[in-house]
């Protein structure tokens, strides 16, 4: 066992990844807890993980598809919204839950030590499981449209493309979440602003509309939004529709990496003494 060294002013870039690995059992159990405790004492239990996005999709189909009549580039609206929500929710849930890491677990952090970076990892794992459940539901609809209607869908192996996209979303979500979490320590305003911010970002991303229908004068929003290509690419893999290019990917990946590194560093610096000011 290595001796534990407690020092003042540990450099902000020093992160003990080995220690996080030593706490892997904790990460596993916490992720499990997040999932099992969420819907305890509810009859439908974990089914809610599927019902919630299903209801959202139905609402979107009715409101945006039928009432506002926003086009979906010929893709069946249910598949279109569900596909977009899949990637967006994964990202947004990562960001929102990680943003609450420090303030939400203050009680725990004030009493016991474990590497604080464990919590963001737990949140990503939990969000991934929920997204996987949503994906299974999506597959049901996808299978129906492919085999019982004449809608043309890409071959199933295209779905493998989803994996790197989800990795990108996780990186982006974690970077943003950690930055927000560190800022919330000092300014609680962030936690009130966050839901609004997330919603605004969603409408600025091609979730409920395809990027191709955006007017030229508004294109720049899509181009500079690092989430755009991820959503378009998700739909390209799932339903064969989506417009993005290599420059967009390169820029977005770069932005996400910078975000993650900055987020981890700032978080690491903030967590050292945050119990003193929380």
């Amino acid at each position, binding site marked *: 066992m290595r*001796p534990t060294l407690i*020092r003042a*002013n540990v450099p902000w870039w020093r992160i003990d990844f080995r220690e996080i690995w030593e706490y892997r*059992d904790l990460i596993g159990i916490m992720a499990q807890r997040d999932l099992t405790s969420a819907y305890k004492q509810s009859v439908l239990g974990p089914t809610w993980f599927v019902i919630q996005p299903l209801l959202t999709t139905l609402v979107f189909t009715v409101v945006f598809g039928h009432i506002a009549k926003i086009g979906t580039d010929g893709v069946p609206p249910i598949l279109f919204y569900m596909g977009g929500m899949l990637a967006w929710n994964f990202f947004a849930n990562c960001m929102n839950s990680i943003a609450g890491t420090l303030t939400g677990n203050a009680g725990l952090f004030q009493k016991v030590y474990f590497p604080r970076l464990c919590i963001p990892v737990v949140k990503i794992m939990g969000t991934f499981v929920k997204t996987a459940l949503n994906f299974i539901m999506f597959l049901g609809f996808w299978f129906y449209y492919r085999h019982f209607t004449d809608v043309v869908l890409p071959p199933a192996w295209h779905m493998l493309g989803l994996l790197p996209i989800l990795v990108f979303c996780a990186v982006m979500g974690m970077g943003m979440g950690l930055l927000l979490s560190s800022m919330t320590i000092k300014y609680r305003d962030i936690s009130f602003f966050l839901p609004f911010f997330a919603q605004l970002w969603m409408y600025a991303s091609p979730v409920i509309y395809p990027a191709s229908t955006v007017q030229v004068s508004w294109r720049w929003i899509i181009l500079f939004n690092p989430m755009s290509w991820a959503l378009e690419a998700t739909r390209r893999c799932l339903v064969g529709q989506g417009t993005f290019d290599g420059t967009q990917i390169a820029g977005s990946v770069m932005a996400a990496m910078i975000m993650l590194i900055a987020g981890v560093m700032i978080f690491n610096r903030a967590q*050292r003494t945050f119990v003193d000011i929380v």
Partner: protein
Amino acid sequence: MNSQAISVRNISKMYHLGTINRRTLADEIRYGWLKLRGKDPVAHMGKIGAKAKDRNPEFWALRDVSFDVQPGEVVGVIGRNGAGKSTLLKILTRITEPTAGEAVINGRVGSLLEVGTGFHPELTGRENVYMNGTILGMKKREIAAKFEEIVAFSEIEKFIDTPVKRYSSGMYVRLAFAVAAHLEPEILLVDEVLAVGDVSFQKKCLGKMEDVAKQGRTVLFVSHNMAAVQNLCQRVILLQNGRLVAVGSQLEIISAYLGAVGDKSGQLRNRADRTGTGEVRVCEIELVDRDGRTIESAICGQEVGIRLYFSRLDTALWSRLCASIMVKTQFDVPVFLHHNRLTRQEFGVLPKHGYFELRIGRLPLSPGKYSITYGLINDGKCIDKIENAMELAINRGDYYGSGEVPPETHGVCLVDGSWKMESTSNSFGRNGET
């Protein structure tokens, strides 16, 4: 240095008092704008423009604390409220970082800062045992191996598959302590956990801690419970206002501590360790003899009065105020407590200044040093209280009125007793009689 279990070198911890934000959004924006243009915000905005660390007064919770703990040693840390005990533990358990200095810990650390950390109300006892265990640093495997033992120790076998939100607070604490107690760390850091549960469970906890100590593991034990410190610790560290003032054998340090705590003069005006809402305050304690004359110390069996001089700071009547006095030994063991409700005596409307007096006909204390803790309670609410407010010195005296002077070794209290002898018909005592 590497052979030490814990080695602390010049650890200091500073807190900033006050708030970290500027008060208004306008101030924040103005500050940011001034900064952006490269101007000095302090010159334009005054004090509010300064950085938090310049604006707020500093408070040093710990200052240059250094000590070593050998492997297998059980060391107590004592000190008044605010002496820095908890801050020290927080730093050693890595909950927060020191402002200066460093510490090295050799071995796996387990902490019992607050039991039940991370218990999730919706999860069952079983799930929480795993949860809590891993938070405290155990591996899943280790918990599984000790699971039966943990449950048996907590005495809640029947409820282990019930969500802990339905547990009584006692059950909750028992389960939590059971997990923590089976942590088997090489170094155990403990903070006041012995104040939990009923008496029999407390005994069990103390027993468990003794076991830990006997197994040659290192324990750092922070407590106000002098009896527990005395029982468990070989060496004691005394902290005062963030500084380490003494290290030594338990008896030496504990009496130094209680000597420092119990102010002989009985003047309480400047005491900072008051608790309570404070509308009525005791400003002085005085020991008087039968005729009301102030005395420095009392003699066994003497008739004495303990006076609590008070000031009422508001305009309320306080006709239901209850005054209580507790006398404790040097080791913080309560000897007796007396309050005016016990004898159904009411004080009536409280004047602006005055005193409460507890009269004791024949002081039943052995010679030695004691401390007086007083409390003023109104409808169950603590108005004013100081622990160990004054030292009470009892000198040898003729308690029994026989010329026999009881020594210190006769325990803490003396009783009115009398003896006689009678003959019986056989050697079996009363039960043997036919």
